[in-house]
């Protein structure tokens, strides 16, 4: 209910252009830049950008669902209830994961179809699994974003900046090996890097058993960011109560 109430992008007038059409064009943009730069295959960019675009619903929705309460002047009412915080916030995250998965899967299928990407029939189910884990992982980062959103006024700016950082660092468009060493180190500890790599390997015919390590790392990253984000939200709640700044918008 909170998801439908607070995430205004579910209207088809926003959902279709922003979450279905835009990722396909992001894919095409980088496919063509890739062809121009003569760097990687089309498949490389389809997978990278489809998975990475899950960041848009995951980051923006988590901010809308938690920090958005502040803009609606309802955060105080939520936090004054005796409801346990963990199920309260985790419950809001579940539809975010589902939406992130749907957006990435749609972009992968449509983008892949447009450029003629060939996927082994047996790879679709594992790819769906990795896509879901990647959406989960980014929703963990979305928790951190939502926590920051309780003190940052410009949440849309913050979400867009994190989206841009993920575009650069996750290897969605530039092979990780071609990034400078410090950027490679960062890419290891952020959502999507391992998920994207896992999907690329699955599409290349690598069996699921050989990418469990990547999937597990991606999931672990999501858990760590989710825990950090939850702790941040609770800390911001305490700070907000102490300084009477909960509803400062």
């Amino acid at each position, binding site marked *: 209910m909170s998801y439908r109430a607070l995430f205004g992008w579910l209207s088809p007038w926003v959902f279709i252009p922003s979450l279905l059409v835009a990722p396909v064009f992001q894919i095409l943009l980088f496919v063509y830049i890739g062809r*121009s730069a003569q760097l990687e295959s089309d498949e490389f960019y389809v997978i990278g950008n489809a998975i990475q675009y899950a960041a848009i619903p995951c980051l923006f929705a988590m901010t809308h669902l938690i920090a958005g309460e502040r803009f609606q002047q309802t955060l105080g009412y939520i936090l004054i209830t005796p409801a346990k915080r963990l199920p309260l916030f985790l419950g809001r995250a579940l539809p975010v994961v589902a939406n992130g998965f749907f957006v990435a899967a749609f972009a992968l299928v449509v983008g892949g179809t447009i450029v003629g990407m060939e996927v082994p029939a047996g790879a679709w189910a594992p790819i769906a699994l990795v896509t879901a884990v990647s959406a989960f992982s980014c929703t963990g980062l979305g928790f951190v974003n939502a926590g920051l959103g309780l003190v940052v006024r410009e949440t849309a700016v913050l979400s867009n900046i994190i989206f841009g950082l993920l575009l650069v660092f996750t290897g969605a468009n530039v092979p990780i090996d071609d990034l400078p060493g410090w950027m490679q180190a960062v890419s290891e500890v952020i959502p999507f890097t391992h998920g994207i790599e896992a999907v690329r390997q699955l599409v290349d015919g690598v069996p699921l058993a050989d990418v469990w390590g990547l999937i597990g790392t991606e999931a672990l990253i999501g858990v760590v960011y989710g825990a950090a984000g939850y702790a941040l939200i609770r800390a911001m709640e305490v700070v907000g109560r102490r300084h009477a700044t909960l509803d400062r918008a």
Partner: protein
Amino acid sequence: MRTLRLLGLGWLLQMKMLWRSTFNTLLGVIYPLFFATVAFFMFQAGDDPKPLLYASLGAAVMGIWGTTSTAAGASLAQQRWHGTLELLVAAPASFALILLPTTIAMASIGIYSMASTLLWGWLVFGIELTIDSPLAFVLAIPATVVSIGALGFLLAVAFVRFRQAWALGNMLEYPVWLVSGFLVPLALFPGWVRPISWVLAPTWGINAIRDAALGGSAWPDIAVALALGAGYVGIGILLLNRALYAARSKATLALS
């Protein structure tokens, strides 16, 4: 003269408002840098023989369209939220003369993004900006800004009936980046895409800027960009007059 004064004041007022907006200034400057960075890495790592300056100029102009598309799409909806749309429409001045400088100001903010992208390319990737024809370069930039602002004006008018027009404007960000050839030569696209590129002023704007910087005659491109901009304004005024007439007769201007 009064028209020019109205356009100038409208542009200045909108610029002052945009300067106060973190979304339009800070994000407008930073956001294209992510795409530029990815493009620089891709061109650096790839086998493409084109100079990195080619990508740097394209990425720089991407910011102008980036600051315009979403904001212009939302410009009328924003007036609705502010409760000023009816007042502006009822004012004695033509509403088109109020809206046009608004969208041109949005494109003008993109000059920040352009400058920051060129600076980023120079500082981080060592891409030096060498300009073959400085005069043409200096004139190509405002011509591109005005023509992209005019395209924003057409978008704003075309989306007048939509409450969530910002999403439609946002949706057009990538397609125009793609088919205008900011980072990809038009020759790489299927034949049916090229006519679409030709009717987009950003295509000619980036051509003019590239020709001025890398060598080539920028003047025909500047002329086409400005002519297309004028065409967008003409079509936009016709659409706007029809939309306002319909909104007045059906009392739907506020859409709420």
